[in-house]
């Protein structure tokens, strides 16, 4: 089928775009997870001076469009004197927003651990920090694995927004191929299939992780 | 002048004949047969899993059964026999719904509709099924609420009522359909001890008014007081059947003897 040949011809272009997408995910995900854990500790602090501004910033970041954040970094960075490539602008914006999302997910996990676990921890003599890190946190992490899996899928999809600032990721590579060849929207159906594979793998991975961590417990 | 007396109904109100039911491999009802006369109060007792609740739910066809017949006020429930009597034809949804109105059921967890007030809960059946006007239904519902002692709670939502109050509304809701028989499925098991008595009182009142009742319960003392007949279920079969005093005094089976002993020691311990 000439259709199949056509798609075959597109693949190298897509592959480069795919690599860019993967790079973005690889940059943003660990950062968001790590910083998200840090931020949630601030959010859970008992000092109003710490949790109040944290709460405000988290809520603000969760209620603005991702693309807008990308634009802020894209147009703002030159003003601060740095000449960041588009891909890094996207990475910073996505990492920052997903830090906020993940902080909320972690907070939900901690809230879901029953109060009785705290009491049990104190009863065996642990101090509050000890209770948190050794009793509550492991249980919270277990509960949120599926929710983190969902967030990872959202992150993968959000990387497509860098197409709006000219970064040739998987999505934009589709647009370029489309402009170069006779095909039009069919290109994006193939692109959609690529994303579907990627997100399915991510979901399956987290599903496996959930089962694995349950067994370990 | 004739002293016309109503002819005693010779036909039993409930007939259960050879009813068997399995959940997959597990047979929970093994060819159960018994009858309940009009106005009789029959109490089903027995260990958990012995099939008593399942049997109750078969009577108003909330559970299907693989073999046997159930007749409520002379009408077959769930299946009609073909002319030869050999084949079972499943009844239509309309038939089943209509038959359910003859038997009122009260559940262990009350199952009131949370988005309707007490009086609306009671009115739903009469208005939607019997086609009564809202005004008629409201009047009747108000009377029923008064009967169960909750006249002032008409416009309260279930979430604003205690467990015992919710259960009494549930009883009123079942009575609103003017059923011929009332089925009670462990109606006090989910209640705090202090709230059990008010519900049992309502049941007692109903029994003195001549309502035919089939009650599944763990409340042994209540069972002895109120029952005309006691049926002891064990692993899907009825192994004792008789008036409470007879059954307790002369248990025919070892199982029931053991059951009685446990009850009596619990009673003395209390």
């Amino acid at each position, binding site marked *: 089928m000439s259709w199949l040949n056509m798609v075959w011809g597109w693949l190298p272009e897509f592959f480069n775009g795919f690599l860019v997408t993967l790079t973005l995910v690889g940059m943003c995900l660990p950062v968001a997870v790590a910083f998200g854990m840090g931020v949630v500790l601030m959010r859970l602090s008992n000092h109003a001076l710490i949790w109040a501004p944290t709460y405000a910033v988290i*809520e*603000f970041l*969760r*209620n*603005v*469009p*991702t*693309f*807008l954040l990308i*634009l*802020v970094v894209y*147009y*703002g960075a030159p*003003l601060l004197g740095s000449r960041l490539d588009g891909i890094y602008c996207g990475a910073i914006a996505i990492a920052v927003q997903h830090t906020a999302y993940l902080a909320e997910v972690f907070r939900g996990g901690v809230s879901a651990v029953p109060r009785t676990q705290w009491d049990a921890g104190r009863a065996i003599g642990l101090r509050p920090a000890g209770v948190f890190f050794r009793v509550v946190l492991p249980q919270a992490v277990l509960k949120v694995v599926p929710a983190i899996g969902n967030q990872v*899928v959202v992150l*993968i*999809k*959000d*990387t*497509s*927004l860098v*197409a*709006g600032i000219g970064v040739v990721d998987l*999505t934009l590579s*589709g*647009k370029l191929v*489309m402009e170069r060849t006779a095909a039009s*929207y069919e290109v*994006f159906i193939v*692109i*959609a299939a690529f*994303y*579907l594979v990627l*997100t399915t793998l991510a*979901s399956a991975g987290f599903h496996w992780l959930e089962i694995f961590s349950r067994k370990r417990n | 002048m004739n002293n016309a007396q109503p002819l005693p109904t010779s036909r039993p109100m409930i007939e259960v004949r050879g009813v068997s039911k399995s959940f997959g491999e597990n047979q929970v009802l093994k060819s159960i047969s018994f009858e309940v006369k009009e106005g009789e109060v029959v109490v089903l007792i027995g260990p958990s899993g012995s099939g008593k609740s399942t049997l109750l739910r078969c009577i*108003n066809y*909330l559970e299907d059964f693989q073999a046997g017949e159930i007749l409520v006020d002379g009408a077959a429930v769930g299946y009609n026999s073909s002319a030869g009597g050999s084949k079972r034809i499943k009844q239509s*949804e*309309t038939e089943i*719904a*209509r038959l*359910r*109105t003859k038997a*009122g*059921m009260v*559940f262990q*967890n009350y*199952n*009131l*509709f*949370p*988005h309707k007030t007490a009086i609306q809960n009671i009115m*739903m*059946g009469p208005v*939607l*099924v019997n086609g009564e006007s809202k005004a008629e239904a409201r009047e009747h519902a108000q009377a029923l609420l008064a009967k169960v002692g909750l006249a002032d709670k008409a416009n309260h939502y279930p979430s604003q009522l205690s467990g015992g109050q919710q259960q009494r509304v549930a009883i009123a*809701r*079942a009575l*609103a*359909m003017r059923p011929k028989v009332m089925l009670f499925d462990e109606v006090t098991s989910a209640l705090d001890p202090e709230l059990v008595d008010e519900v049992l009182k309502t049941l007692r009142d109903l029994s003195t008014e001549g309502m035919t009742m089939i009650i599944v319960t763990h409340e042994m003392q209540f069972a002895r007081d109120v029952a005309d007949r006691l049926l002891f279920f064990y692993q899907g079969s009825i192994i004792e059947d008789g008036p409470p005093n007879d059954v307790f005094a002369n248990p025919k089976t070892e199982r029931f003897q053991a059951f009685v002993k446990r009850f009596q020691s619990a009673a003395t311990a209390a």
Partner: protein
Amino acid sequence: MDVAFLNINYLLKAALVTLEMAVATVVLSFIVGTALGVAAALSGRLVRSVLTVYVYVVRGVPVLVLIFIAYFGLPRLGVDAPNYVAATIALVIYFAAFVADIVRGSILAVPKSTVEAGLAIGLRWRQVLMQIQLPLGMRLALPPLVTTASIAVKSTSYASIVGVWELTYASREVVERTLAAFEIFFTVMVIYFCICYPISLCATYLQRRYAAA
């Protein structure tokens, strides 16, 4: 911040367009999604499977890709629609899937015991659906539906990538003209926040009131 004030009228006009798009998206996707969700809850395996596949695809594909498919695809199918129509169609197709999934799940989440209570007083299945499953199901569905609405509002900004003139597009125009990136974007973020945060507060309130115990 003078730059922001000078341009505020322009930006607010654009915010209105964003709101129009958001309302259209939410209303249409909720109508379509609810119909699909109710149908799936009541139907057999076939319809339910179709819905599952639809939700799976939409969940795994970025909104932007769907917008591109609509934007480039509609002309090819002979439909000559303005860019905002194409974008809205894509958004509706995207969010209707989530709405359908939520509605289907909520109707099925109505406790079996409550349904049985309806059957026990002689209600027919159609009456049980209308009087019990739908009212109670929609109550359960409200919190996640409101959250979905909030996400939909934010997604309208992606339409700017195919040239739709709304708040994000307008803010880019102003920034490119004035170079006052931080002031302008901050103002625009505040505008988005003012639209979305009340919605998310609504969702939290509804979650407390109506979520399954």
